């Protein structure tokens, strides 16, 4: 179980995170919500050990700050918000997901190839393998990036706004794929999203940050019941039933 305990971080003199404490329940898809500047991406940068912080981020008994980088990369995968599109094939990029397992020669073992193949299938990226990454559309590129972090074969994966700049159909398809992998592979996901409606549809659990502090962490149902999202984001919630399934929408007041 990944746990954030009393995480505080600051840029210059401005405190961005303040005693952030929550844990990810295993095999669940947790969505991290918050207004712009609430500290969501900073939290992921802390986990990636890119910026200094106080507190502890642990996975089981292991404190991530004291793990060697390769071991940390075998424990938690992180997909950053923005990534360049290099002139390499999608298959080569996906293969980079095996970097934490490779020796100096960089040769793939049978296990590496198996994991790459499985990641390509799970991310539904078979048709993209031989194309160059810089020729892919935004949605296709994110599928390839997803395959790369799946090839990392970690129990936990964190994605920072993976559906940014996607059109709505791609967004929904991407999150459906993520939920499918979450259910099939029992992988724990923490996904940063901006779209409240998508969060309500695809999350099992929600964590909401406000001004660098956790103002909610728990199941989606309890969050919706308590009306936390309406209060924090100043939105109105609409519910209706379609084909026997309850749908939830949020819109600005």
């Amino acid at each position, binding site marked *: 179980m990944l746990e954030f305990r009393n995480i505080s971080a600051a840029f210059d003199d401005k405190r961005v995170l303040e005693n952030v404490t929550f844990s990810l329940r295993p095999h669940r898809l947790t969505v991290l919500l918050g207004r712009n500047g609430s500290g969501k991406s900073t939290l992921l940068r802390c986990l990636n050990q*890119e910026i200094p912080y106080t507190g502890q981020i642990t996975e089981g008994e292991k404190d991530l700050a004291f793990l060697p980088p390769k071991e940390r990369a075998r424990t938690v995968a*992180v997909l*950053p918000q923005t*990534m*360049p599109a*290099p002139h*390499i094939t999608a298959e080569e990029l996906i293969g980079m997901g095996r*970097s934490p397992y490779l020796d*100096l020669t*960089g040769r793939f073992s049978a296990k590496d190839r198996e994991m790459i193949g499985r990641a390509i299938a799970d991310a539904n990226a078979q048709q993209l393998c031989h194309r160059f990454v810089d020729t892919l559309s935004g949605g296709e590129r994110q599928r390839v990036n997803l395959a790369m972090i799946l090839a990392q074969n970690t129990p936990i994966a964190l994605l920072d706004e993976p559906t940014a700049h996607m059109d709505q159909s791609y967004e929904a398809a991407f999150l459906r794929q993520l939920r499918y992998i979450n259910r099939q592979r029992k992988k724990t996901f923490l996904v940063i999203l901006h779209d409240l409606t998508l969060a309500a549809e695809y999350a099992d659990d929600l964590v909401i940050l406000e001004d660098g502090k956790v103002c909610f962490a728990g199941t989606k149902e309890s969050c919706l019941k308590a009306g936390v999202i309406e209060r924090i984001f100043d939105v109105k919630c609409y519910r209706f039933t379609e084909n026997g399934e309850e749908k939830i929408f949020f819109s600005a007041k």
Partner: protein
Amino acid sequence: MSYKRKILILLPVLLLTALAGLYFGSAALSLPEFFSALTGRGQIAHGIILWQLRLPRVAAGILAGMGLSTAGVLLQSVTANELAGPNIIGINSGAGLAVIVMLAAAPAAGKILPAAAFAGAFGAALVILTAADRLSGSRSAILLIGIAMTTLLNAAISFLSLLDEGILAQYNHFTVGSLKAVQLGELAVPAAIIIVSFLGALGLSNQLGVLCLGDSAAAALGIRVKRLRLMALACAAAGAAAVVSFAGLLGFVGLVVPHIARRLVGERPVRLLPCAALVGGIIVVLADLLGRVLFAPSELPVGILMSVVGAPYFLFLLCRRRKYAGIS
């Protein structure tokens, strides 16, 4: 065409270029004379031309091409900037300052100029590496520190060159870059440094490949980004400084050759490094050969020829890329 096949083609091309470098020159040898001299059975004069005049130049050309191209690939990878070359980490300016200081302090000590050039080049690179290490170690920090240091060193060079016109003439000879006076014995130490830096670069190449995904993604994949960047810079500095010590300041090799190699084998450093080393060797040996025969018995320094041919070719590459990117 597969990567292995391309390398298997480049290897004999380098061998043929080297043989051409040995065969052609201002003193014409017939083919039987050439082969006799090559096997050590011909006239003594032919043997001297081949083994003591042409072989050192060919060997120096291969080493210079290998060292500068390796440095270029490393620098362009770690800074994610295709315009990066050995000059951005102070190699040229550091070597230049050391040489001009030596010329001013001990004009008769010509023999220690290569060692001084190496010390100056590597010393300047170390200062830039240390400053980059103290700051963030990011790609922009390296570039900006490099530019600032280079400006400072160039100012010192300009100041010293104002003091004595004789020094300026000798210094200009060094900045042009030439393989004319190279002797085989002088190449042993630089060769060892160039080969070690190349092998070091190959060892880092898989991790360097991941840097193309950006620092955050590379860190998430278990790469110690800052340490990797500094190690790659140290390899680049050592290799390029070793070249400067015997060939002076050869322009454009470290900048252009990685671009040519990239067109042949793609972006991944693990493939780019061997290809760039071979292409670099071929180009420098060929340029030196042309410099010797085009205006024989006069000689055009390899550095001038490299710049004359390299600059238009580089512009051609840029235009091709703009066209590919759909920019008119």
